[in-house]
Each structure stands twice: as structure tokens, then as C-alpha cells.
């Protein structure tokens, strides 16, 4: 079963590296890319061109983004009942203590720092695949969506 991953990342190099790394992990993962915060939110709400966008099983969120930065995107996701159950992982180059602290306070599911070395990065993506897309039990997608829809009405 193909897993849906929303990668919120403005750097095309990082997007490609991430896609390559998931490919290395040999798992059927569909990576959707939003290159800024607004796109990410539009994807989740299925606005405009994203009408048929799937509900992601995992969100990989960079912090430093144009238009709407990762922290605000995180706050909106975790503040919205429809989306807050989606595991949201911060994947960024920052090792700043302040960023780490703030992300967890905004209820990020985990905080990961992008390693410089390619092998290390591949290991990290592999670990994400193993953990968040394989081992983790999530609430039933449809039921969850229905409940959210009901609440929304």
C-alpha cells in the first residue's frame, strides 16, 4: 500500500535528495511537495489545484520557508482538529536549541536535523520510513476523516 508523504521544503536540492533517499529505502512512498507554507496548507485543505490531494500519512516540515514559515504551518496543523492527528516531523538544518524547544512546544511529533553527509541523510530517511511509515499505528484514516467532516459541519 502506497504511503502518502507531504514534504514541505523550498530547496529543490533537498527535495531531490529526499526523494532519492526514499527511493533508496525501496518502499512505495509517494512524496508530494509544497515549496512554501501556503501551498502546504492549501494541499491539506485541498484548495484550488489540490482538490484531489490525498490526506498525507506523514508531513516532513522544514522550518525556514518563504511566505509562511514552518513554525506557523506547524501551529496551524496542530491547531486544526482535521490535521492534528497527522504525524508532523520537523526536518531542518537548524540545530538551534530555541528552534528545537519551540517546535516541541507547538507539538511537533519529532525534531530531526539534516546531516551533512549523504549516507547519514539516507540513514535518517530510512529510519523515518521504518518508524513513521511502517511501525507506527495511526487512527483509521477514513473514520478520522469522517469525524473531522462531522465536526467541521
Amino acid at each position, binding site marked *: 500500500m502506497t504511503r502518502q508523504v507531504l514534504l514541505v521544503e523550498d530547496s529543490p536540492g533537498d527535495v531531490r535528495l529526499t526523494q532519492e533517499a526514499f527511493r533508496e529505502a525501496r518502499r512505495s512512498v509517494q512524496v508530494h511537495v509544497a515549496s512554501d507554507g501556503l501551498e502546504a496548507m492549501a494541499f491539506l485543505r485541498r484548495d484550488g489545484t489540490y482538490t484531489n490531494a490525498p490526506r498525507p500519512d506523514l508531513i516532513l516540515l522544514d522550518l525556514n520557508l518563504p511566505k509562511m514559515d514552518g513554525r506557523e504551518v506547524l501551529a496551524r496543523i496542530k491547531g486544526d482538529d482535521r490535521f492534528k492527528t497527522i504525524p508532523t516531523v520537523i526536518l531542518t*538544518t537548524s540545530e538551534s536549541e530555541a528552534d528545537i524547544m519551540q517546535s516541541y512546544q507547538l507539538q511537533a511529533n519529532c525534531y530531526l536535523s539534516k546531516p*551533512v553527509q549523504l549516507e547519514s*541523510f539516507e540513514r535518517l530517511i530510512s529510519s523515518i520510513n521504518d518508524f513513521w511509515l511502517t511501525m507506527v499505528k495511526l487512527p483509521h484514516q477514513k473514520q478520522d476523516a469522517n469525524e473531522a467532516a462531522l465536526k467541521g459541519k
Partner: protein
Amino acid sequence: MDRNHPSNWRQLLAFGSAAAVMVAMASVAYRGTVVSTESNRWARHVVQVLGNLQDLVLGLSETESAYHDYIVSGSPSYLESYRASLIKVTTDEAALREATADNPGQATTLTGLATRISEQIGFDETVINLRSATGLDAAATTIRGDTNPRTIVAIEAAVTKMRDEESRLFAMQNEDATRRSHEASAGLIIGTVLEVLIIAAAGWRVHRASSRRHLAEEALRESEMQWRMLVHEVQDYAICMLDLNGQIVTWNEGAERITGYAAAEIIRRNFSCFYGTEDKQKGLPANILRTAIADGRYEGQGTWVRKDGSRFIANVTVTALHDRSGNLQGFSEITRDLSKTEASAAKYRGLLEAAPDAMVVVNEGGAIVLLNVEAERQFGYPRDELLGQQVKNIIPEGFAERLISDGTRSTAEALAQQIGTGIELYGRRKSGGHFPIEIMLSPLESTEGVLITAAIRDISVRKAAEKHLLQMEKRYRGLLEAAPDAMVVVNQAGDVILLNVQAEKQFGYSRDELLGQPVKNIIPEGFAERLIADGLRSAEDASAQQIGMGIELIGRSKTGGNFPIEIMLSPLESTDGILVTSAIRDITTRKRAEAQLLQKVEELNRSNRELEQFAYIASHDLREPLRMVASFMQLLSRRYKGKLDSDADEFIAYAVDGVDRMERLIQDLLSYSRVGAKKGILYETSSELALLQALTNLSNAIHAADAEVTHDPLPSVFGDEVQLTQLFQNLVGNAIKYQNRGTPRVHISVAKSEPGRWTFSIKDNGLGIEPQYFEKIFGMFQRLHRRDEFSGTGIGLAICKRIVERHGGNISVESCPGQGSTFRFALAEGMTTS
């Protein structure tokens, strides 16, 4: 009581008219006598008798007139004319007697008339004497008391009788002549009638004038009474009137008091009775009168004798009295008893002697007339040597003259100018020495002219004190001017009373512009008041609180500019009350320097913060592109290794190596900047745990180098655990890295170097460092080895140094090349450490 007193020109005119009528009658009669010798003779006889009769009447009138004038005025000239008239009356009477001798009837009538006249004269004489002796009152009383019916009417009756008789004889013996000279007779009759009419009119006029004179007499009497009382009541002067011969005519109370004679005893006596025998022999009284007549006035001192024979010094003034026409009438004499003045002077002499100052009385000639004991003592002369001497003997010439001219100015001037203000001069002692004196002058009017009383005070002691004070003042002023600060002395009212040059310079005012001005002109209002209030507190309060403590205020210069000042106050007790001395320092430069320093510190802090921020952000943001380069280089090398040529593989290897080093450099820079950015508080930390964490982090390296790392039990310290881990990690890492090909041995030991501090030592058996690099190796980017020998960023030890310094210590190295190195640093001991 009423009498006819022809006295003014109207009466004279009346009588003149009567006389004119008589002359007319005489001429008529004469014309009659021409007709008949007999009648002529008779007529001549009758005319003579009638003329004589008329003369007598006129004489009597004149006598009465003079008599009354004298009584009223008391002027001797009237008395004279009275006497002259009296002589004329006697002559007229004799002539009449001779003319009427042939007629016994007329002679009898004449005798009666003469008796009346002599009676009248007798009475008048009595009144005149009374008037002369005792004055108008007595005379008036006598006149009022007179009841004898001697009247001019009786006299006139006799005159008429005689005149009628003559007329009858004339008519009887000259009927013919009468007839023939009817015209003449008629003329005579008409003349007689006219004359009677004139006499009657004159009589009526006289009566009227007499009433008026009576009123005038009353007024005169009133005024005279007042004057008499005034003169009479004078106590201190004997005042009397003398007649021409020096006989006393009037006497007042003062005269009685001074001489002891009562008025009754002395009136009519000659004033020479006041003089002693010797003066009388010298003819002094007569000389006095002569002088008074000659000069109009005599004034002099003499010895008078009282009634009881005692004598006194008298000041006598005799003035000659003249009537309107300049005839001498008598003298006034005013006498003062000088002995009484002398007695009171004796009393004041005691006062003079008791005065603390030298008192010298000088006359207008500059001669000393009186002095006291203190004057003798001050000038060193005995009294006798000074009395009568010129005052300039003891006061330098020039000054003495000024002193006298000053002293003799009008009293008002002198009072206005001298009372209370002393003149400072120099006095001259008998020994020739000078000494400073202060003189107070006051003029004193006396019988000897204006005297000058001079109170002279020896002020040498005061002068010396003043000089001393002046010296002190000069020294004080010198000190004041030498002060580096502006000094301003302010009185309680807040006015500037003293200042120095620095104060002028600082505030831009000249001395004159500040002296006497309120201090708030130079120190803003509010502050100035506080300043004065502060300054005026008790000296104890002030010294407790202010000495050594400056108050910072704002000063205001003349140009209106404000500048910061520091003020030190100290109260200063003076004769003018408490003064506030303020030392004012312009602290513009200091303030500016302080502000600049503060600004620099602020700038430095900001720059430091920015730098740290920059280093952190830079190292962080540099990793993003580096990661791209590294990742894609590695991807390239993995996927295309062997598919490209050997050069491509080599180039990719260099690029990957560069990326590795770049990554380490950034990592180290980030660490270094973190040490500074993290102003963490130090906690009690186990240094052993920090070391163990470091060794864990280094486990790969330790394993790879097969190193032996040993350590003593490490104590608890005050520190940052993360930083201490980094510190151990860097130092142990270096110890393993810089090695020959042997087994790296590293030992970490600890010792108490001083109370409260632990010194850690990390000893290795490595390459060692040459001494000239001991300092350098702790600097940034300092490396001792080539890149192909040992990789490294040159930041590791700089981080160590920074961490140790952040912990309040310092790091050092001890080493010998080839024998290993020992790095040492000290940390504060933790509380739980034994």
C-alpha cells in the same frame, strides 16, 4: 473826671483858628483905638490882658497835654515839654498879674485862678512822680481816685470872668469910643462869639479825643502788663531799667533772686550799689553808662555784690534807650549769674575725667582749654603743659586745622556729618612717638565762643588687629585664588559675596557682575535654594553629610549655556552670620568622558552580540549549501565511480575532502560562538561525568588509535556540564591525535592548588610543543602542523580557552617537544566536594 486835653493837630488847628480870630479881633480893636487915644489905651490894655489871658490858657493846655502824654507813654521827652510849658504858664501868669494890677477885682479873680492852677499843677506833679516811680498803674489809680473839682471849666470860668470884667471896663469908660467904633465893637463881639464857638467846638473835640485815648490807654495797659509779667517772671536774668543817672526804675523777679534785693528796697537807688568799693572808686558804674551811651551797648563780666554782701561773677549787658527823636531816655540792664554755671561745670568735670577716651576741649584759636586725665596719659604730658597750648602739638599739623574748621562749622552741619563717625588720625606723644587715634568732634557754644570737644581714642590695638586681619584675609584670598575650582561664598540671603578668578572664568561673568547678585543667576532656581538651605544647616549636620561628597547640578553661564557642575559645600561662621562656601567644579569634560565611555561600552556590547549572532547564523546557514555540495558530490561519486575517467574520480575526491573540512570548520566555529552566546549560570556539576561523556563522544577515535585514557577520581565543580564535556573532549582528543606511532597514553589528574579551587591536568605522551608556541596555540585558527600531517581547524584550543575563561579560570600548557604535554586549568570547587 473828664478833662480837656488838646493833644493832636486838630486841637492845635482849633486853637490856631482861635488865635487867628484873636488877631482879627486885635486888629479890629486897634482900628478902634485909632479913633480915640483913650479908647486906644484902653483897647491896648484890654488886648494885652486878653492876650495874656489867652497865653495862660494856651500854656495850661500845653501843660496838660504834656502831662497826659507822659502819664500814658512814660517818655521823658513829654516830661520835658511839660516842664517847659509850666515855666511858660508861670510867666504868663506874672504878665497877667502885672497887666491887671490897676484893677483890684481882676487881681482877686486872678489870684483865685492862680490858686486853681497851682492846685492842678500840684496834683499833676504827684501823678507824674508816681508814674516815674511805680508806673502807669499807680498813676492811673491816683487819677481815678481824684475827686477834687479842679477843672478846666473852673479855670475857664475865671478866665471868662476876667475877660468880661475887662470888657465891662472897656465899655464903661469908652461908651463914646464904643459907639464910634461900633463897627470895631461889633467885630469884637462877633470875634468873641466866634472864639467862644471855636473854643466850644474845640472843647467838644477834646472830649471826643479823650474818650478815644481812654480806650487806647486800656489796650496799652493790657500789652504793657503782659510785657511786664514776662520780664518780671524771668528767673535766670536780673532785668531792670535805669534812668539817665543810673537810678533803678524797674526790677524783676530774677533780679530779686540773684541780688537778694526786693523791688521796694532797690527802686530809685543807683545801680552802683551792686559794685564793690574798689569798683566804685575806679568809677566803673559811671564808665559802664558812658560806654553804653557811646557805643549803644556795654557788655562785660564783673563782680557783683549781693544784698547780704556776698559776691558773684556777673555777666552784665547795659543798653542805652532812646526815644523816637533819638534823645537818651535811660538804660536797660540785664545781668546773669555766671557762678551758677561754674558750679554745674564742676559737676561735668567729674564726668569728663571718668570718660574712657582722652577728652580735649579746644577753642577757636586752636588752644587747649580743658582736658582730662586720660588725655594726659595718652599723650604723655602733664595737664599744665597742655593747657593753653596749641592742639597741633599733639595732633599733626594740617589735621589739627581741619579738625578745628570741621568742629566750628554750624552745629547742624556738624551733627549731620560727624556724630557717630570717627575721623582717623595720628596722635603725637610728648616722647615724639605717633599712634593711631580716632577723633569724634562736637561743637559746643559757650560764652567764650564756639569750643570744640574732641573725644580721642587710642586705636593702636585695634589697628594692629585690623592689620593682622588684613594679612589673614590676603592669605585666605591667595588660597582662594589658587584653588583649581571656582569658589563662591554666599550669604544667608543667597547673595554672592566673594568669588575667585576661576568662578569668573567658569561662569563668564566679571567679578563686579556677580558680587552682590543672587547665586541663582548662575545656578538654576530650586537648586540654588536647596544649596543654601543645605549649606546653612548646622555645621555638624553639614560636615556629617557633605564633606567630601559632591552634589551634581547644572550651572548657568553668562551666555545662557548650561553646564554640569559638582558642588562641595561647607558652612563658614563669620561676623555676618553663617556663610556658605561652595567649591564648584565644571565637570563637562568628565561628564562627556563618562557618557562617551558608556556609549563605547554599549557599542562594544552590541557589536559583541552581533558578532556572536553573526558567527552562529553564519555557521548555521553555511551548512545548507555545504550540505548540498557534499550530498550531491557523494551521490555523484557513488553512482558514477568507474564510469568516468580517473581524473574525474580524483577531482570528486578533493571536492568531497574539502566539503568534509568545511563541515568541521563550521562545526567548530559554531561551538566557539556557542560558548560566548550562552551566558549560562554555573551549577554544581560532576567533572567526572563530564569527562566520561567526552570519552564516550571520543570512543571511535580512542578505539581507532588504541589509546589508553586514565583518570583520577574527579571532584564536583561549579560549571556548565556541556561546556566541560566539550573542554575534556577537545583536550583528550588533541592528546590522542597529536601522536607518534606508539600507544597514546592520556592521564587526567586533579589537585587542590589553592583553597576553593581544583586544578585539572591532562597529561599525554604525545609530540609535545615548543615553548614559543605555548601562548599561540590558544589563539583562533592557530595550527602547528601541516594539513597532511594532522587535520584540524585551529579552533579547538581557542574553544578550550574560552570555556575556561567563562568559568573564571585560565588554561596553560607545559611541554617539551618529544616528551608530551600537560594542559592545566583550574575550576572553582563545588559545595559537596570534600
